């Protein structure tokens, strides 16, 4: 909200209070000053000058060359683009060196070859109004050569953020009341004209008292609509409003003066009195902003007795019912509308006005008739005419405030005894509350936010300031809970992945439908598993991600497009899906996602060949992440991927692995094989969380034996490993595959066979094994393998 310091000064004396102090006082009372703009002429080098001569510019049709008397004893030549002046007029002249608004400084210059020693100014260039159509013509009695500053009032415009609980501050009088309370300065007495009230008895009717509990109308006849006087225009312009005509300007003035929205109807457009009714479902309403709105039955319409809509109650006037130059009789509305219903209407129609802004937050019910009386008197004063009859009323102003008790014990507990009751009481008194004994306070009608003890306590703290309350620290030990333990394990995991050369990604949890094809969920997605947002901002962000893979692939693609030769990213975060195909329960599961592809090593000057990461790189990484665990890939249906597998650890499936289809990779500019894995974070963390006792280091040396076997090409390593384990040879400590060989040409080995070689390590805990013992154990193992597998030894 914009507040004019001059306007504010109508209500209290602000002398001696600097803008910075004003800012501080309000901001630290919760009324944040967001901007301060100095209006008017601050430079002494802008002076009153008289135009003595004006000739056409020799080289430019639209410019003139003027000779002006700026009180310097000799004439000053200035080139000027305006046409609205006559020789002899007085105008503002910025001399070289003058600093104008926006911080630019006037100098001597040549314009199209003609010397110009300064600038003649328009009102807007000086911050003295909105008129930029030509030079500002000054009154002829202003003394030539004197700084313009001496003749015009400067102003300061504050931009103030009013929190939604303080609608009472949405006016100059309301702000003045607050400033008075906070500074201890006296508020000037405001004398409202008195008005006679009388029930309307049909001349005004309200269908729904819920939406509009109180409606008043004043008839003013014989007004002459015209321009507002300068003081009124100036006030409105100062806060950025455009003057329209005297009657409309007065309603706007009273709104910004008292916070009560008013509306003036042209009585000639009203057939048989005012009727406040609900809109018809689908009713069309042409508003003052020249847009047409479709209404619902919950909207409030001000109509006449014929049913014609004149205004959208509390929100905006109609296009045809307002006061214009030809109006002579006026009906002045002042009413109180139910805040939620105004809020619903304004929000649904995205139609926000100064009126709706105030009504939806809550206007002072006690101020409805005062505002009406003030506006009516101003109309009679400024536009002539007479008030016909009493103010017609329908319903009554609701009583929304009352007596509230300030609980001394609770207040003292809240502030730790740092604010005395005397200070507290003084603060409430200054804010316009009246003590009625026993800690009870009568709340004025405009403070709708003060309903409970805590609301009063807040006021006390707000006025006292937080500096008054000393800081305290009552920290105590907190036992780590389940969430803490998991957080620590997750962080360990992330650090481990970072140490393996992976960047942690944070991708957006809302993805597009199209991205679902990249999903690699822990369990296959069924119909109805996808959770969609009802009203997404865009197609790109319309689905709750069921998998981290889409975001990680987008991350990979972005980095490759930026020149990355390898992609190594992980993300830890939530994935979302409906349980079991669209039943009501939604599941959020913490997931670890990985994407890997591209160069295994960063480029190096001595390396002649670079090599790409493969599926085994990702498998090896999982092995390193889960030390001591048996990580296996169990092939699964590839679906949209080139290949896929379940990640099985210690016999339990904990996630999925896939290789991106190269066709999809090319779409994403990923020109190398890309591998994805997605793991159930809880299970990964659990596997890493054990504090197993350490293995003692062996006391005796082991012996190793190698064996190369010839096997059918499609016999999986897993089958061979399984057979080896099944033998449970007590002396066998470990075994590793160290070579796989095949020859598609069939020359060295039949094309449907492969050679696969393992190294076996034998050891006993209590002695050095004899060579014969090792041989015996090894041969026994080989025999077993030969017997159970379709293999032979080479």
């Amino acid at each position, binding site marked *: 909200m914009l507040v004019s310091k001059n306007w504010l000064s109508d209500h209290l004396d602000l002398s001696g209070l600097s803008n910075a102090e004003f800012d501080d006082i309000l901001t630290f009372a919760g009324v944040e000053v967001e901007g301060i703009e100095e209006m008017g002429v601050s430079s002494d080098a802008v002076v009153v000058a008289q135009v003595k001569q004006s000739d056409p510019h020799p080289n430019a049709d639209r410019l003139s060359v003027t000779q002006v008397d700026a009180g310097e004893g000799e004439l000053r030549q200035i080139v000027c683009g305006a046409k609205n002046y006559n020789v002899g007029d007085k105008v503002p002249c910025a001399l070289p060196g003058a600093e104008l608004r926006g911080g630019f400084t006037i100098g001597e210059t040549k314009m199209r070859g003609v010397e110009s020693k300064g600038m003649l100014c328009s009102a807007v260039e000086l911050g003295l109004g909105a008129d930029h159509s030509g030079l500002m013509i000054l009154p002829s009695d202003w003394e030539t050569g004197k700084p313009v500053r001496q003749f015009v009032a400067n102003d300061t415009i504050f931009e103030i953020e009013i929190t939604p609980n303080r609608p009472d501050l949405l006016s100059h009088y309301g702000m003045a009341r607050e400033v008075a309370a906070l500074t201890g300065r006296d508020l000037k007495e405001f004398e409202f004209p008195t008005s006679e009230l009388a029930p309307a008895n049909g001349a005004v009717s309200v269908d729904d008292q819920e939406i509009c509990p109180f409606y008043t109308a004043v008839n003013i006849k014989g007004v002459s609509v015209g321009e507002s006087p300068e003081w009124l225009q100036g006030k409105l312009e100062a806060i950025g409003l455009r003057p329209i005509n005297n009657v409309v300007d007065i309603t706007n003035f009273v709104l910004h003066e008292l916070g009560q929205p008013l509306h003036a109807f042209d009585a000639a457009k009203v057939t048989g009195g005012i009727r406040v009714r609900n809109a018809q479902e689908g009713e069309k309403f042409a508003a003052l902003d020249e847009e047409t709105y479709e209404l619902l039955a919950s909207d409030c319409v001000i109509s006449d007795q014929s049913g014609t809509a004149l205004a959208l109650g509390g929100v905006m006037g109609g296009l045809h019912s307002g006061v214009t130059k030809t109006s002579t009789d006026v009906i002045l509305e002042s009413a109180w509308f139910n805040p939620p219903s105004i809020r619903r209407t304004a929000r649904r129609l995205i139609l926000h006005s100064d009126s709706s802004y105030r009504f939806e937050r809550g206007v002072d019910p006690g101020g409805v008739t005062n505002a009406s009386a003030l506006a009516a008197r101003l109309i009679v004063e400024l536009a002539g005419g007479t008030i016909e009859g009493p103010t017609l009323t329908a319903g009554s102003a609701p009583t929304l405030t009352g007596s509230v008790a300030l609980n001394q014990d609770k207040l003292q507990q809240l502030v730790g005894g740092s604010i005395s009751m005397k200070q507290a009481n003084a603060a409430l008194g200054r804010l316009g509350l009246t003590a009625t004994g026993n800690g009870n306070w009568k709340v004025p009608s405009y403070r709708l936010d003060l309903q409970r003890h805590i609301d009063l306590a807040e006021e006390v703290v707000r006025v006292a300031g937080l500096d008054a309350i000393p800081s305290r620290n009552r920290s105590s030990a907190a036992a780590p809970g389940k969430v803490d333990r998991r957080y620590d394990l997750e962080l360990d995991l992330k650090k481990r992945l970072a140490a393996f050369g992976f960047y942690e990604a944070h991708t957006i949890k809302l993805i597009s439908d199209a991205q679902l094809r990249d999903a690699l969920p822990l369990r296959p997605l069924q119909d109805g598993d996808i959770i969609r947002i009802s009203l997404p901002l865009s197609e790109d962000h319309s689905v709750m991600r069921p998998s981290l893979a889409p975001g990680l692939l987008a991350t990979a693609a972005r980095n490759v497009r930026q020149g990355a030769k390898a992609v190594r990213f992980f993300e830890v975060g939530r994935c979302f899906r409906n349980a079991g195909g669209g039943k009501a329960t939604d599941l959020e599961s913490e997931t670890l996602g990985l994407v890997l592809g591209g160069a295994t090593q960063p*480029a*190096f000057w001595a390396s002649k060949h670079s090599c790409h990461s493969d599926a085994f790189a990702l498998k090896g990484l999982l092995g390193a992440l889960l030390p001591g665990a048996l990580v296996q890939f169990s092939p699964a249906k590839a679906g949209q991927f080139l290949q896929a597998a379940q990640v099985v650890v210690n016999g339990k499936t904990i996630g999925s692995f896939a290789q991106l289809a190269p066709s999809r990779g090319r779409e994403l500019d990923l020109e190398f094989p890309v591998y994805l894995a997605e793991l159930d974070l809880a299970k990964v963390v659990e596997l890493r969380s054990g504090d197993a006792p350490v293995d003692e280091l062996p006391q005796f040396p082991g012996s190793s034996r190698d064996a190369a076997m010839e096997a059918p090409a499609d016999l999986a390593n897993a089958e061979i490993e399984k057979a080896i384990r099944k033998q449970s040879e007590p002396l066998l400590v470990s075994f590793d595959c160290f070579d796989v060989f095949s020859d598609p040409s069939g020359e060295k080995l039949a094309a449907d066979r492969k050679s696969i070689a393992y190294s076996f390590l034998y050891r006993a805990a209590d002695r050095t094994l004899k060579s014969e013992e090792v041989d015996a154990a090894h041969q026994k193992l080989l025999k077993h393998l030969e017997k159970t597998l379709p293999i032979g030894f080479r």
Partner: protein
Amino acid sequence: MKEEIEQIQADALATIAHAVGEQELDTARIAFLGKKGRLTAASSGMKTLSKEEKPVAGQLLNAARGAITAALDTKRTALQDEADRAALEGLDLTLPGRALHSGNLHPLTQLKDRAVQICRRLGFALAEGPEIETEFHCFDALNTPPEHPARNEKDTFYFDSGKLLRTHTSTVQVRTMESQAPPVRIIAPGSAYRRDEIDATHLSVFNQLEGLYVDTDVQVGDLKGTLEFFYRAMFGEDTEVRFRPHFFPFTEPSFEIDVKLRVKGQDPRWIEIAGCGMVDPAVFEEISKSRGDDLYHPDKVTGFAFGMGIDRLAMIKWGIKDIRLLIENDARFLRQFA
């Protein structure tokens, strides 16, 4: 015999001294000490010596063998050292090193962890809750009236089920109080969602850190002391922190927190960094209704709550001008936090 041995030794030492390369050295070894070498041959002449001469000759032979062996070892070491040095000949140590794949935690994780560690020093435990929430947990329980602007579907993401994406992590306050008896002292870092178009300063999914402390006799001074501690630990011991009264539906009194930011080359300026306040009694009343007991009756407990944007904190801390950098995961950006 003696002359012969001395001659062999002299020849051997001379040959060894002149040997170029390990192969020549080996040839020399064989020539003198090998099975058919000269010294071996000489020792076979021992048989012809008398009983008295034998020990003398034996000593001479051993001495010669020792001297030759020592010379061979010395020379071999020297040749090896020379070869080792030659292998480095011409190596340009100013060439670039072999790069490693670097990796690190996302800046938001780093900052979140820093915040978590500070709060833990103050005795806060971690808590969490779902991101797909009910209107009750997101609004009703937090004293947000049905007509409040935040509840509009232009500002909040809803689902057809009637649930919504939580607009703040304050939902975890409600969930925690529903399930735990007081006192509670928790923080809840997590995602929140608002229907904002993504631009340089807005994300529709952003990260918050929520805090709640409820106990008997929690005062405004506790709120102040806790958050002052937090920001000093976060930004430095001499960080200035100030509290401006503000309004939030679920706290009263409410404050916004500013810290004075000192960036090299800039004038210090106050930056709005968080919202906080004393838990509104209406929240405790809703919790009591939901729990069906009076452990959280507003006459028994008081509390404070705070919430801050982690993304915003990161932007302030590291001078990040475009919030989108935090979700784009460009390695050139992430690398800077390694």
